[in-house]
């Protein structure tokens, strides 16, 4: 019998809300949105954790500009505070080496992380999801009960085709969907809004393509001052998060 699954509920018991930033599609801004969301909530005085579940393309640590932080061992592992956020990522253990994990190993590593991480009391745990609807998505649904999905897309048909699949799956499973964010908007287009409507998912608004965003990567203070962060905050102010 695997003893780890049993303790996960207890480890997450003092977390008020679990927010999974997801898409199904890659490269739509999940990591930028998850990290900026966590930073914004923390700035407002909330206790925030950030969990990077993209084990093969971890990005949140790059966006945060993580240096020399490492979890403390204390009846488990306690995530270090990075710019005010309790930050957990596989990078502490795999450094910047490739981690060629198969799905079954990804699943095992998630269970291990959830079983040993001591988040303590949190208002929000933001989860930066990988692309796909595989092991990470299924395990989040299985083990992180009560998670709410913040779904991201770009205006492109190709992206929407995949995002639609995640939305359909979540709806079928009756998982709460906070809504759909349309990111990297450059030109007028109503596809994303229409897709949301068709699936009865709240359309939360759009974030413009921000050509200066790249310069803020690795610098959280700068990041919070970008047009990207401002657009995101307008969207969040329409939710019950901020």
């Amino acid at each position, binding site marked *: *019998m*695997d*003893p780890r699954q049993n303790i996960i509920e207890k480890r997450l018991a003092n977390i008020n809300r679990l927010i999974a930033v997801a898409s199904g599609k890659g490269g739509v801004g999940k990591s930028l949105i998850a990290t900026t969301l966590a930073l914004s909530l923390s700035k407002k005085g909330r206790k925030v954790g950030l969990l990077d579940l993209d084990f093969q393309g971890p990005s949140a640590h790059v966006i945060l500009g993580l240096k020399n932080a490492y979890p403390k061992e204390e009846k*488990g*592992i306690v995530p270090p505070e990075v710019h005010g956020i309790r930050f957990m990522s*596989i990078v502490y253990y795999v450094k910047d080496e490739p981690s060629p994990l198969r799905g079954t*190993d990804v699943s095992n590593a998630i269970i291990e992380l959830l079983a040993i991480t001591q988040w303590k009391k949190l208002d929000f745990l933001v989860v930066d999801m990988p692309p796909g609807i595989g092991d990470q998505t299924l395990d989040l649904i299985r083990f992180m009960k009560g998670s709410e999905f913040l779904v991201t897309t770009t205006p492109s048909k190709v992206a929407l085709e995949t995002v639609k699949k995640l939305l359909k799956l979540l709806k079928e499973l009756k998982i709460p969907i906070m809504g759909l964010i349309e990111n990297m908007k450059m030109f007028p287009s109503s596809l994303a809004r229409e897709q949301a409507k068709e699936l009865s998912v709240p359309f939360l608004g759009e974030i413009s393509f921000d050509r200066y965003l790249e310069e803020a990567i690795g610098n959280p203070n700068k990041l919070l001052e970008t047009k990207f962060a401002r657009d995101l905050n307008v969207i969040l102010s329409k939710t019950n998060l901020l």
Partner: protein
Amino acid sequence: MHEWALAEAVISTVVETSKKEKVKEIAEVKIKIGELQQIDEEIFRFALGEIIKEMVRDQDSSLENMKIKIEEEPSFLKCRVCGHEWSFISQSKKLSEDESESIHFIPEAAYVYIRCPKCKSPDFEITKGRGVWIDSIRGTR
């Protein structure tokens, strides 16, 4: 001391399982600890003891006389590409202290730091001895 978190997982699972099975007094639990994770058995046993003491003090007497048997399970890895099978211990000296510690926390870090000794592939399976496992629980209803 992250062994504490795993010990807590074990006790919590033992308690819940015995409740489900309507066991009143648990006589013995057999735990296997996989060599790959390099659990410190002494710390682990100490943590189990402390957690049990606390629970007995609080409310739960079902654990009072529980014997704990811990067995270390040798770890084996098997390459999906060339089929070669090897024991973790035969290669573990090649790991640096940092690498060992990473595997201690997340055994899947093995896919970053270990390669098939025969064909150098990272595409192997951990066939035995990954981490903590409850082998059996004995008790009386």
